[in-house]
């Protein structure tokens, strides 16, 4: 009972959020709703027993792709009202594409439901997906795993080399210095004659 209830709850949230991605006026809100859609989709994967895919979806799509979208939306000053102006002139073409996509979805979904006995089978050895991946990733594919790690390291070094600039005269926060400050170097008691000011 609980899985069925959660399925309907999560999928209705997913559909509502997906609708709001298109409908909301503020592009930042759109991206936020997109993140909600990804989260709900991840929830659906968990319900299906594909917890590794759910994790990947959250890490890759929410952690990286959606944040990238947010950066683009917030940093590039895209005029969305300008982009919406051509809505009716593009409508016939876009409509045709949308109808084709819908037909495809119906065909795929129909063929899936016609053969409704297909359910994912758990592994014979009772391992979860993540354990099964880990078992091969750190043994048979250790070389590829490590080498891909090095490629990411190169990308990181490269990005730093090409963009990091050490400016002189920039004040940086030095936490040790802040914490080790005592009352003696921070506060000075001055006797001030009334009406004379501090003299500065």
């Amino acid at each position, binding site marked *: 009972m609980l899985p069925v209830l959660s399925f309907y709850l999560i999928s209705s949230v997913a559909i509502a959020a997906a609708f709001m991605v298109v409908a909301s006026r503020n592009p930042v809100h759109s991206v936020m709703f997109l993140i909600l859609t990804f989260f709900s989709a991840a929830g659906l994967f968990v319900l299906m027993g594909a917890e590794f895919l759910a994790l990947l979806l959250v890490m890759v799509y929410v952690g990286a792709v959606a944040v990238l979208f947010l950066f683009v939306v917030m940093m590039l000053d895209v005029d969305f009202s300008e982009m919406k102006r051509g809505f009716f002139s593009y409508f016939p073409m876009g409509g045709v594409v949308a109808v084709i996509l819908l037909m495809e979805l119906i065909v795929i979904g129909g063929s899936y439901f016609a053969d409704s006995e297909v359910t994912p089978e758990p592994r014979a050895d009772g391992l979860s997906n993540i354990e099964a991946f880990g078992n091969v990733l750190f043994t048979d594919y250790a*070389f*590829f795993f490590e080498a*891909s790690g090095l*490629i990411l*390291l*190169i990308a990181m070094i*490269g990005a730093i*080399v090409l963009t990091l600039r050490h400016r002189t005269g920039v004040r940086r926060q030095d936490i040790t210095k802040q914490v080790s400050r005592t009352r003696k170097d921070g506060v000075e008691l001055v006797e001030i004659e009334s009406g004379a000011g501090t003299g500065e």
Partner: protein
Amino acid sequence: MWMTLQPVLGEIILAITASQFMLLTGLSKSKKRPDLIRLMAVVGLLAFAFVGFVTDRNVTETFGGAFINDDFARYVKLIIGLAGAAAIVLSRNYLRSERLDQYEFSVLLVYAVLGMGIMVSSNDLLTLYIGVEMQALALYVLAAFNRDSLRASEAGLKYFVLGALSSGILLYGASLIYGYSGSLRFDGIALALQGDYGPGLVGGMIFLLCGLAFKISAAPFHMWTPDVYEGAPTPVTGFFAGAPKLAAIALIARVLYEPFGDLAEGWTLALMVFAGLSMVVGALGGLMQTNIKRLMAYSSITNMGYALVPLTAGTLAGVAGMLTFMTIYVVTVIGVFACILQMRIRNGIVEQISDLSGLAETNKGLAITLTVMMVSLIGIPPFAGFWGKWFAFGPAIGAGHYFIVVLALVASVVGAFYYLRIIRLMWFAEANEGFVAAPRIERSFSLVSAVLLLAMGILPFITYPGLNLIRDAASSLFG
């Protein structure tokens, strides 16, 4: 444990040197930091170059057959490691004078060499792709290392975009091959070719070959070469022209001879097209160049065409010829770029060919060494360049590919024009203001390279062990 790791020992040494020693030393604030890190890089690269010959000389596969270490890989890694060490030593004075002396240069170069090592040892399409990407990613950054220069940024960006395109083509080919053979491993692909195979295997092989042809800048995939060579910092260009080309062409040889050996009639034609177009494009494109780095770019396109000629033969002598030619070419290129690095007047570095005018009067030593390089590139005996071409074109004649050899000879004659133009300018034109005295490193590198080019041509006690090494290397592809 040791049995698994021993074949990758060279790669492990490089990875640990770069990621642990070099990057951690980078945290120090000492003034000597860049020199110390360069020293580590050179030691690591030399260890990488020689470690394969120290441990044992068997053919060893590891990681479930994904990685192979045989004499072929060992020989190519020897040359690549030495070329990488030479590039780091040669870059020191250039980076200092251009105020670019960040230690990450050495780190990236070491990683590029690591990627090339994985490339030449790949025995699996996944290893192949990881190696290609690793070296390419490091090289993109090296090309744009002078980030305040517009031309260097352009070079880096062009290289990156076209490199990404070539990776896409390569991956598409790899996916076709995997789809039609059901195996990522080279022996599995070779097995699939024994039986009934679909058209996808041939198509996939052609795509894979096109992706790799980008990396050796063989025409018609050469468009990026002149701009990248011109824009990148000179020591980086010198490195580009040698080691990555050798790694990529060695990979081509391995891919074609091991998994796709049974498709020889298919790839022979493709190689001939690449070789023929490269020779024509390189020879004609170089005629009108005024910048010496652009000229070397066209020269390298032509030379890659020559290097593909012996591979069309499909024989042991063909692979040996390719290795001989490429070894001599790498030595020549290091020498030529050591000469280009000496082209410095009081205001800074110059790169125009006209700046060499009358060099024989102002700097006789440089003029003589550069003349030796050019004569060797033309291929006049007794210099090594002649023997490189001799060993490269011989196997193709043996296989009956007369047309491509005749084309290569015609391209050599056309190409000789632009090398001779430099020689004429140096010896018979009016003298410019001379170059400032060059640092000792550059002078000794150009001198050693020139002497080697002469010695490899005439001294049997250098040539015979070298040729034996090359024959062992080539025969391991036919084991």
